[in-house]
Structure formats: structure tokens, C-alpha cells
């Protein structure tokens, strides 16, 4: 018997069906035993601010408040997690390889965005899983399809997939 809580795509033999019970929609206010929070409605190709405290990291892992590009498939976001890649302003970073340059005109800034405009480097080696709680709720920008697919090229190399 297939688990009804898994996405329908996980069951090769069963036809896709819409879920019967609505879950807490991402992008809305949700209440937990720890308080009330507004969640980001993150989708693949979008950019959000993410704050990662230093004490949550070790070694060369990135920390501080940084813009992250969401690279995960939208179909996993119901789990309230996303997979993101930090976007750096330091475009002169050496050792480019899998670090993908994203031209300024490939970044479509949202109104009221607090991102600094300009070219960015997607640090694909720093890809990580993020709870949507780590994402600040307001979207900052969106990348063009060309740019997101280019970042995917770097991710494919880093993870040796594809």
C-alpha cells in the first residue's frame, strides 16, 4: 500500500491524485508551540535572505546573512525545507570552475528588494538544505530560466549527478 503522504510521483504504479487533506500552505502564517511565524513561499529560481549564525557552522561552511538562490524542485517544498545556494557579490573569486557567474541582467529584482544590484557568483559548492524558517519571508529577486539552468550546471558537477 503506497504511503499517501509521499508525493504521487514516488509511486510508479499508482496514478497521481490530489491530496485529500489540506496541509498548512507555505507562505502563510503558521502557529507552533514555539510561537507564530510567517513563512516564505519559496519556489525554485527565487532569491531570499537567509541568516545562518556562525555557531551553526563549522570549518568552511558559509554563515552570516546572505542571499540564497532556491534550487530545489518545488514538489519537495511541502516538507517545509528548500535547498539553496548562496549568491556572493565577490565576483573575482579565484578557482571559478563550478562557481557560476550570474550576470546582473539575469537577476530580476523585486520591488523593495534590499539586495545589492549587480553581478553575482553562485557558490554551488555551498549548497545546503534550509528549513523555510531560515528564509526571510519576502522574496528579493528571481533568476531567469537561463541563469537557473546555468547554476544547475555547476551543481551537477559539484554533486556528480546528471
Amino acid at each position, binding site marked *: 500500500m503506497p*504511503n*499517501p*503522504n*509521499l*508525493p*504521487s*510521483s514516488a509511486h510508479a504504479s499508482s496514478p*497521481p*491524485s*490530489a*491530496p*485529500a*487533506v*489540506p*496541509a*498548512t*500552505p*507555505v507562505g502563510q502564517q503558521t502557529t*507552533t*508551540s*514555539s*510561537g507564530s*511565524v*510567517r513563512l516564505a513561499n519559496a519556489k525554485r529560481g527565487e532569491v531570499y535572505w537567509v*541568516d545562518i*549564525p556562525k555557531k551553526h557552522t563549522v570549518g568552511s561552511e558559509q554563515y552570516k*546573512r546572505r542571499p540564497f538562490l532556491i534550487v530545489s524542485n*518545488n*514538489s519537495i*517544498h*511541502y*516538507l*517545509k525545507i528548500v535547498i539553496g545556494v548562496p549568491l556572493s557579490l565577490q565576483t573575482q573569486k579565484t*578557482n*571559478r*570552475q*563550478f562557481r*557560476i*557567474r*550570474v*550576470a546582473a541582467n539575469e537577476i530580476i529584482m523585486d520591488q523593495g528588494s534590499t539586495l545589492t544590484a549587480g*553581478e553575482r557568483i553562485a557558490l554551488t559548492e555551498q549548497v545546503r538544505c534550509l*528549513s523555510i*524558517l*531560515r528564509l*526571510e*519571508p519576502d522574496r528579493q529577486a528571481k533568476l531567469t*530560466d*537561463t*541563469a537557473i*539552468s*546555468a547554476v*544547475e*550546471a*555547476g551543481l*551537477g*558537477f559539484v554533486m556528480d549527478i*546528471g
Partner: protein
Amino acid sequence: MALAEKSLDSARERIHIRRPDVVFVRKPQAKVLPRGLASIVLTALRESDILVKQLIAATNKKDFEALRTKIFRDYVNLSFIIGNSFSVAAEEKPQLRQLVTKEAFKLVEEILHKEGIPRLGCDVIREANFCLDTLRRAHRLIVKIHAYGKAPEGTRERDRELSSLFTRTALWSQLHLDCIRVIVTAARNPRVEPDVLEDIMNGARLSVMAYSYARQGLELRKAQDTYLVESVPLDAEDEELLEESYSDYVESESINAEP
């Protein structure tokens, strides 16, 4: 990425093709073809190497770029001759193109690893390896695109555009990877000016764009199933994990902190 694309545009090459017909092969792969076709491919590869040797002999960036603009059309035509020869043979053996491409990438990768580091150093070869690997992934996407077949109605114009962009960028990257291959395998170690080498590396980097266009072409063919992104109820374990993450996070940090 942007710089390399500008260089490509400045070459003012406009390739009009009906579908991606790029195949990455070297001499050993030509031998799997019937004698007549193999002879055509070997001649085209030889001519192509002559063009590449002329190109790497450029003594400065300006000459390199001028020469590249001049030879690129010939390089493209030779590549189409090679691609078409394999297409003819692939009518009998559908997996042929995929197999020879796979072997050719492996061969070039081995050449870079074995000969490349002493000639060009680790950094250049690492970068070249990334470009080669990305081009290989782009070609794998083309196999998937062919398996899906035609793009749906309403997306065909975009598909043609992506196909043309893929061909341009894949061949541009291949030309520059060929430059690196010829440099590392030359009998006499050719002197390559640093600014020329920089241009070569930027050109090879267009494999990223080739991947991007191929990926978008594949995306056009995939069904956009909305049921996959609708909310799905969480099971007990998911709920527990989520609840734990809320507690841990709220206790330790202020959520959505301003800078």
C-alpha cells in the same frame, strides 16, 4: 559567462540549423563507422585540427580573436559534416551517437589528466575538466530531448531558438576545448600567451551556457504537473521533525532578523 557570450556575439556567427546535430568525437570513434563515412570524418577531424593549430599559434589576444572569428564558420561546417556522418550511421544503430560521444569525452578527459597538468598546470586543467564535464552533461540532456521527441505546440519557436543557441555555445566551447587538447598533445610544447590562454578558458566556459540551453529545451518537454507542487499532508514523522526544528530555531535565534 557574460564575457564569453559577448565574444561569441562579436564573432558575428549566425548558425541556422534545424535541430542540434553536434557530436563530440575523436579519431578512434570514427573507426566504428563504415569505411566511406569514417574517411569523411577523419578528413574533417584533420582539417579541424589544422584550424585549431592556426588558432593557438596567435601571438596575442587581438590576433587570436580575429582569427577565431575567421575560422569559426569553417569549424562549424566541419562539425556538421562529422555530425551528419554519424546521423547517417545512427539510422541503423540508434545508440551509436550516444556511445561514441561518451567514449570521446572519456578519451579527452584522459588526455587532459595525463598530459595537461605538466603543460598547463593544475588550475587550468581543473577548469578545463569542469568545462568538458559540463559539455558532457549537456550532450546527455540532448539524448533525453531526443527521447522526448518534439516540443509541445506553442513552444516550438522557443525550442528552435534554444536549439540554435545550444549548437552555437556547444561548438564554441568545443573549439576552445580542442585548443587545450592540441596544446597539451603537441609534440613540441607550444608557447601560448597568457592572455590567449585566458580567452581560451573563457571560450571553453560556454559549456555552462550550452548546458543551460539544453536544460531549458528539456524543460519545455516535461509535463507541468501541478499536483506535484500542491500541499501534501505531512505524516507523523514529518510533523515531529518540523515541530522540533521550530522549537530549536525559535529558542536559539530571532527569526527573520534584520541586518
